């Protein structure tokens, strides 16, 4: 478990909040006092009425409350699965503006650049991590990636990350992990704030918020504008690597307590993006070396995005023991892409995408007594896809889903807590899933917590895997999504383009399954003193039913028709560890100077067992290509590789590390923060067709071979300096920051590494 929220400035406050909540929910529960919902506050909101004196200091030293892992508020220390939290305080100290900035500093997380910047958790690609805002999903993925830069972290109270599968509570996509962005609820009284940030590449981020809180209710409105002129990592070619854009977010949070029992919440969020890019296609006239006859055609690449969500919620505490929470959720995500020639305005490519999700769910929390807490939930959802991509015979895909889940927590003694949960998902277009999970927390002594869990995760087939009907006019092949396979093939047969001998038995087509995993996590946290905490987690994810294309039939001309099937398996395994130390505390220097250093490390192996088998059988070779010698001959050498040469799936670094060092000086209200993150080299392409990345410009007999299948390892250093002033009732914060201090770039291969960036921030709190 990794904890990032234990900041100094908020330490007392955290202590107070956590003191109360842990008293009520976690520690006290274990001590024998019956927790009661009437006092614990809603999961996404912290009360501030606690008295820390009631708690022994070392019981709550790094306490913080989280809601994602169990769908109920719980002290982070008492959660039996690995959880990280980044508080608003830490987000501010890091000068973070988008979700990606926040997650960059969390150990073991990496980014995937594929149609946006996605998140890699425990070695999984972005489509396996569920991203939530206040417990409801953020929709709109492209090629599986949910772009982390879409989400502003202004108005956010904290960001929680659960590692390992949580499909037993959240269903699809919660296979590698869950990120839950908890928004700040309206606070009491009138307040407002203004935050502006400007930096390199004319990147600006401006936010304004107004808050009005009354006895029974409150409103908070936030407006954020994030814009940039983009940047170019490949100046030799026309067009920016990252295009210019303007992104707007409006976020409204309201609460109204009808009475002590019934509480209403409403969250509304809307965002828009306008993006202006450009690129060129160069026709080399058949002579790659002769640039004089090259013809360059320039294109404008314009993108628009609109997405919104409405999230009303009613919480009814109808007795001391029962709480019912009913949520409605509606969200829509639309994009429009147009690529036009700059010379004549002709359309090269156009795409519209429209996704709508409507969901109703209800959750009953039942506190049976001292030691038993049960959560029941059920819901329905309806998802519709519009736009050009998945239309089939004039129809747009509509999918329906029903789900139910249950969780029981049992705390037989203060030494032991058990949690069992399971969820059933039934879907109109893929086979139903049952996802159980079991976790256990053992506290043999106060300073030691042992955690173990085994759980299942699943990910629904992607829209393309269900609904695609696509023919590549250049290469000849066709691809049919599983929900379209039968009708699509019938159509092809009718059109006479399927080779007669290859027509499959259409009645034998099996329903596609979700991709599933079984995951094991085991770890420990040792916190012998208030100034030192070390945690380690071992993980193993065994994934099967991965969906891949397979040939279904052949066309008359021999080109294939592909369908999607559950074929592949992978596993990821490794170790995550973090140590947090406050070196001044044991020497008693911690009254005005606060220093905290956190070091994280992850070892990761993400592997395809079929590849491992082939390597072990000695069937896999690499092809070294030597540069042309004097006689103009290019030589190659095929060399057998073995399992020890296997770098794993592309995009996975076996070693990664993070360092976070902060210094705070209370009298000056001054914060210094330095973050570094390192990842070792990782494969990005298979050049020689052997399915693995091994080639890396190796020197053989004094000659450097051609081609690298790797992105070189790198270390990124970010730093910020923050100074607060109080003028009257206005708290002013000035901040300067530098991202990527040493100016590391990997060209167009890693577009999310734009080199060194400087920025300055001014924040006013009224």
């Amino acid at each position, binding site marked *: 478990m990794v904890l990032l929220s234990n900041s100094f400035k908020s330490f007392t406050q955290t202590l107070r909040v956590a003191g109360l909540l842990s008293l009520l929910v976690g520690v006290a529960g274990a001590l024998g006092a019956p927790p009661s919902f009437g006092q614990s506050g809603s999961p996404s909101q912290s009360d501030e009425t606690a008295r820390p004196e009631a708690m022994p200091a070392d019981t709550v030293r790094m306490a913080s409350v989280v809601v994602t892992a169990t769908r109920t508020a719980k002290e982070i220390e008492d959660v039996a699965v690995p959880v990280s939290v980044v508080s608003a305080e830490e987000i501010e100290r890091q000068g973070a503006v988008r979700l990606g900035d926040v997650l960059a500093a969390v150990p073991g997380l990496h980014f995937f650049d594929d149609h946006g910047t996605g998140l890699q958790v425990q070695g999984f690609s972005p489509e396996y991590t569920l991203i939530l805002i206040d417990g409801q999903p953020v929709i709109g993925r492209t090629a599986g990636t949910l772009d982390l830069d879409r989400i502003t972290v202004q108005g956010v109270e904290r960001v929680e990350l659960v590692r390992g599968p949580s499909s037993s509570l959240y269903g699809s996509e919660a296979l590698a992990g869950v990120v839950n962005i908890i928004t700040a609820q309206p606070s009491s009284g009138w307040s407002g704030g203004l935050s502006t940030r400007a930096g390199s590449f004319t990147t600006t981020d401006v936010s304004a918020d107004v808050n009005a809180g009354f006895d029974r209710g409150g409103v908070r409105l936030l407006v954020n504008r994030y814009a940039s002129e983009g940047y170019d990592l490949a100046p030799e070619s026309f067009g920016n690597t990252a295009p210019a854009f303007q992104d707007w977010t409006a976020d409204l949070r309201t609460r109204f307590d009808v009475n002590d029992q019934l509480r209403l919440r409403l969250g509304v969020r809307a965002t828009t993006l306008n993006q202006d890019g450009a690129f060129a296609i160069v026709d080399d006239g058949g002579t790659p070396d002769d640039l004089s006859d090259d013809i360059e055609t320039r294109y404008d690449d314009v993108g628009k995005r609109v997405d919104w969500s409405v999230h009303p919620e009613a919480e009814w505490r109808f007795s001391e023991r029962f709480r019912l929470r009913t949520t409605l959720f509606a969200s829509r995500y639309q994009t429009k892409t147009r690529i036009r020639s700059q010379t004549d305005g002709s359309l090269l490519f156009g795409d519209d995408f429209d996704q709508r999700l409507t969901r109703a769910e209800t959750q009953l929390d039942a506190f049976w007594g001292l030691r038993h807490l049960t959560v029941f939930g059920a819901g329905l959802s309806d998802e519709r896809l519009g736009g050009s991509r998945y239309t089939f015979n004039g129809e747009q895909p509509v999918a329906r889903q029903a789900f139910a889940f249950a969780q029981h927590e049992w705390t037989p003694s203060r030494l032991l807590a058990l949690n069992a949960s399971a969820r059933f998902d039934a879907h109109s277009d893929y086979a139903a899933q049952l996802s159980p999970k079991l976790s256990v927390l053992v506290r043999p002594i106060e300073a030691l917590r042992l955690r173990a869990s085994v759980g299942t995760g699943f990910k629904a087939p992607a829209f393309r895997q269900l609904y695609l009907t696509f*023919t590549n006019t*250049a290469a000849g092949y066709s691809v049919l999504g599983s929900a379209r396979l039968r009708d699509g093939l019938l159509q092809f047969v009718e059109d006479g*383009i399927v080779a007669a*001998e290859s027509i499959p038995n259409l009645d034998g087509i099996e329903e596609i399954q979700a991709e599933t995993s079984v995951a094991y996590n085991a770890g420990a946290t040792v916190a012998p003193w208030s100034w030192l905490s070390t945690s380690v987690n071992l993980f193993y994810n065994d994934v099967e039913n991965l969906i891949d294309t397979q040939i279904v039939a052949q066309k008359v001309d*021999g080109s294939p028709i592909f369908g999607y099937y559950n074929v592949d398996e992978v596993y990821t395994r490794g170790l995550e560890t973090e140590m947090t130390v406050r070196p001044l505390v044991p020497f008693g220097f911690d009254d005005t100077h606060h220093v905290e250093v956190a070091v994280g490390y992850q070892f990761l192996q993400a592997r395809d067992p079929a590849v491992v088998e082939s390597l072990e059988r000695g069937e896999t070779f690499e*092809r070294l290509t030597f540069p042309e010698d004097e006689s103009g*001959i290019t030589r190659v050498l095929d060399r057998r590789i073995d399992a020890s040469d296997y770098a794993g799936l592309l995009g996975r670094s076996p070693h990664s590390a993070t360092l976070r060092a902060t210094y705070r000086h209370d009298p000056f209200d001054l914060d210094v923060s330095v973050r570094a993150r390192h990842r070792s080299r990782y494969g990005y*392409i298979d050049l020689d067709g052997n399915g693995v990345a091994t080639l890396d410009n190796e020197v053989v007999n004094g000659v450097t071979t051609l081609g690298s299948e790797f992105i070189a390892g790198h270390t990124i250093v970010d730093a910020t300096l923050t100074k607060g002033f109080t003028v009257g009732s206005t708290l002013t914060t000035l901040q300067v920051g530098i991202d990527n201090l040493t100016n590391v770039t990997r060209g167009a291969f890693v577009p999310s590494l734009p080199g060194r960036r400087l920025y300055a921030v001014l924040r006013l709190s009224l």
Partner: protein
Amino acid sequence: MLNRLYLLALFAVPVALVGCDSSDSDPIPDPVPDPVIVPIPAQTATDIEADLAVAFGPTGPQGRDLYTLYDLDAGEIVLSSNETDMAVRAADSASTAWDIGFRSTTIIFNGGISGPGQGSAQLLVDGFEAITEAPADGYLTDGTNGTCPEIQTPGGTFPGPPLAVCTGSDNGWYNYNPGLNVVSPLPGRTIVLTTGEGNYAKVRVLSYYLGAPAPEDLDPSEDPGRYYTFDYVVQPDGTRSFETTVEG
């Protein structure tokens, strides 16, 4: 048990060292050069067309479904896939002069269902240079290979075409990467064959694209495919050795 293994390992190390020393102990060269055995130099055939695309219809690049037939001994094309005169094609393909044929990603040999010659082949999992002698057996003529992977579909299982070198990505000589839309020759796959006249030969495909661009320079949208560049060695004396003796 563990202790015993450990002891064994302790003994094994010095023995291995002694072994190394003795083999390196005679550095003085012979005054009179003996004949030495060297590999037969490989030839390279470049940009052999293999049913070039003549149209891009709604079903993709279309060739004429014609083979290019190549004579390894002579190092020349016997019949090009560009030749459309069926009389010429019939005459040329009926000869034993050609040894290997190419059509898109399919490779055939002059024997069995493919031709009148003594051609047969097998795909070895080994480097081209490492194969110094053709295996004595294991050769199949086209039409007799029952080991080609079946094509599994949810609607049924279909046998792979029974060619000596199986078709399909990762089943034979190549890998097709749908993400990159690239056909790459698989490293460590060497075709050992008997020619139309019954001599032994070995073949390694280097590239499927015109001009054999290095993999990192290859752009399938710019570089036309269906052009084979391959290394080959023929042993003309009828033996299985791919080595020859030269004066030292």
